[in-house]
């Protein structure tokens, strides 16, 4: 590969202000927006002891009160901070926002809330579970009292966990998911560079392409040269975004930093070759091709759940094959698998398919652009 051609192409790409903005500045701007918008979300959604009030006249025999006191958010942290008072006082506390809910204990306990939210949902789930358990114990006592002596009561009384703690290597951080999406989309945006590289060397796409085709340079050599330059420029944008997230926004990628970076590079390569393949094989005007590429990218992003997380599961359920041929999904899924799973099996599967797609798109692009004459230019 000629370093001179590579260097010249690199300079051309770095002077492409439009692509440079979308590739370098836009993700940084978006990351900043995400940071300020979603960091508050995390603070709000952090689990903390829930303040409730409890009113029960029958203080002698109160299983619910005991259950409330024993409930734990995490080991050593009580789930509820309880104020014992009458219903009137509890109502005042609820109205003033000092508690999230109050429970009036009886054979059929009642829950009073002011609004719906995470804490209210947890309290309701707790109470539903308590009711179910009480009913179960009552039924057992009525029909088979001897079973109680065989330890069944202890089994039944095992409270379920209302708050599930992720068993991953790091504490869960919901904002990471947004930054993963941003990284994934930045990777796949490399398709625009790939698209431009094909425009540049195809005689039927640009006058410069025609001039290049008249020269004795091998198409493969020039294609590799240009794609390497594009990959270099795009990698720069990934490094910049990564550095910004890591150093400026202090996003904690945990132990998976290296894997995330590798995913970004392979994702960028796939994006680059995807853009090239789309440009080579679609026989339309440049503007139409650009529009189609945008639809492919946005469609891929939508189907991967970037815009609506349920879509990821709908696709997995209805069209599972699409999961494996959608590069955007493969990148996001690789990130998610690093986030959710302790093993790397799923991550490696995603990365392997992603790499395979990059090779496939690269070969398809080369077949399309290799030295040939055109029907019209």
């Amino acid at each position, binding site marked *: 590969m000629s370093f001179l051609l590579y260097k010249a192409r690199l300079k051309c790409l770095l002077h492409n202000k439009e692509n440079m903005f979308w590739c370098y500045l836009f993700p940084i701007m978006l990351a900043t927006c995400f940071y300020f918008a979603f960091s508050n979300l995390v603070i709000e959604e952090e689990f903390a002891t829930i303040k409730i009030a409890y009113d029960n006249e029958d203080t002698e025999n109160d299983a619910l009160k005991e259950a409330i006191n024993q409930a734990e958010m995490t080991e050593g942290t009580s789930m509820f901070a309880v104020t014992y008072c009458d219903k009137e006082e509890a109502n005042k506390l609820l109205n003033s926002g000092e508690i999230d809910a109050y429970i009036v204990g009886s054979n059929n306990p009642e829950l009073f809330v002011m609004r719906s939210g995470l804490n209210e949902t947890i309290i309701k789930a707790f109470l539903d579970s308590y009711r179910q358990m009480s009913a179960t114990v009552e039924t057992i006592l009525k029909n088979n009292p001897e079973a109680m002596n065989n330890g069944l009561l202890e089994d039944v009384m095992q409270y379920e966990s209302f708050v599930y703690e992720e068993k991953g290597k790091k504490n869960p951080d919901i904002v990471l998911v947004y930054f993963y999406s941003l990284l994934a989309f930045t990777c796949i945006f490399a398709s625009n560079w790939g698209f431009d590289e094909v425009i540049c060397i195809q005689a039927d796409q640009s006058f410069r392409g025609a*001039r*290049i085709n008249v020269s004795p340079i091998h198409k493969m050599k020039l294609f590799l040269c240009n794609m390497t330059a594009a990959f270099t420029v795009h990698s720069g944008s990934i490094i910049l975004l990564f550095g910004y997230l890591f150093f400026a926004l202090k996003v904690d990628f945990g132990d998976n930093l290296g894997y995330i970076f590798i995913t970004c590079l392979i994702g960028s390569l796939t994006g680059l070759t995807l853009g090239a393949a789309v440009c080579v094989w679609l026989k339309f005007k440049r503007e139409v091709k650009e529009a189609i590429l945008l639809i492919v990218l946005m469609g891929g992003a939508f189907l991967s759940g970037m815009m609506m997380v349920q879509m990821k599961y709908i696709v997995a359920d209805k069209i599972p094959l699409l999961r494996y041929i959608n590069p955007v999904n493969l990148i996001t899924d690789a990130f998610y698998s690093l986030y959710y799973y302790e093993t790397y099996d799923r991550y490696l599967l995603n990365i392997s398919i992603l790499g395979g797609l990059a090779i496939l798109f690269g070969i398809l692009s080369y077949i399309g652009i290799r030295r040939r004459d055109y*029907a019209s230019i």
Partner: protein
Amino acid sequence: MIVQVKGLVKRYDKLVALDYLNLDVEEGEIFGLLGPNGSGKTTAINCILALLKYDKGEINVFGKPMRPDAYDIKKDIGIVMQNVAVFDELTVFENIMYFCSLYIKDKAEVKRLTLEAIEFVSLEDYKNFYPKKLSGGLLRRLNIACGIAHKPKLIILDEPTVAVDPQSRNKILEGIKKLNKEGATIIYTSHYMEEVEQLCTKIAIIDKGRVIAQGTKEELKAMISLGEKITIEVYDLPENIINELKELSNIYSVDYLDNLLEIKSNRGKNNLVQVMQFLGDRNINFSKVLTELPTLNDVFLEITGKALRD
């Protein structure tokens, strides 16, 4: 023979762009392809360069069949396209260097040739300019430099002077002559007959994808009957005089419009003397007299029945 085109046919659906085109370009020639817009000049060039598929025919360059992967042939060809084909993101120097490095591997050699090309097109003062900062004429000169920097044996220039100021045009034409003197064979396409007439040693006139006449400019002019065109400024010329003029020997066309009498004569001596004597005998006063020998436009007009710029 440097370029040989035999029976070349190129169709775009129902439109026949090249209709059994034949061309022979010999070494050291400046070969002009002259024809109106849409006559098939650029299509012919693109076929010769193996950029375009063609339906029938044979193209040999340097005695070998021209194909898209004929790298050994392509290394000796330089192309200056009709449209300016340079990178806006690179300076004049970098652009020439880039295109030169598509042909030459040695970096020092590329640099030397680039500087030579810059000097050749007189862009020394602009070598660090970006193309957007250049005028149309300078841009055309850059376009030429990018095509010839690697010192090709065959240079194809496709309408290189379109939308160029007279000063730049003269520079370009002088440059082409110089390249030819240095040993390059030139194929020059244009619809400007004056340029072709001034520059080319051999000319092929193309219309509707066919070569309608081919030869030196003298040979082409000898093909037509028009020998001389006499234009005389005369005021109030009676109709009967015009009719009498038409009856003179060797005269085949007389037109009178806006006080200008235009007489076309067949090849022969004393046509002007005969006309002057005729007007003098009838006491017809006239002011200006202009005689012209046939141009390539006249050749085109006589063969096709339409002017070259129609």
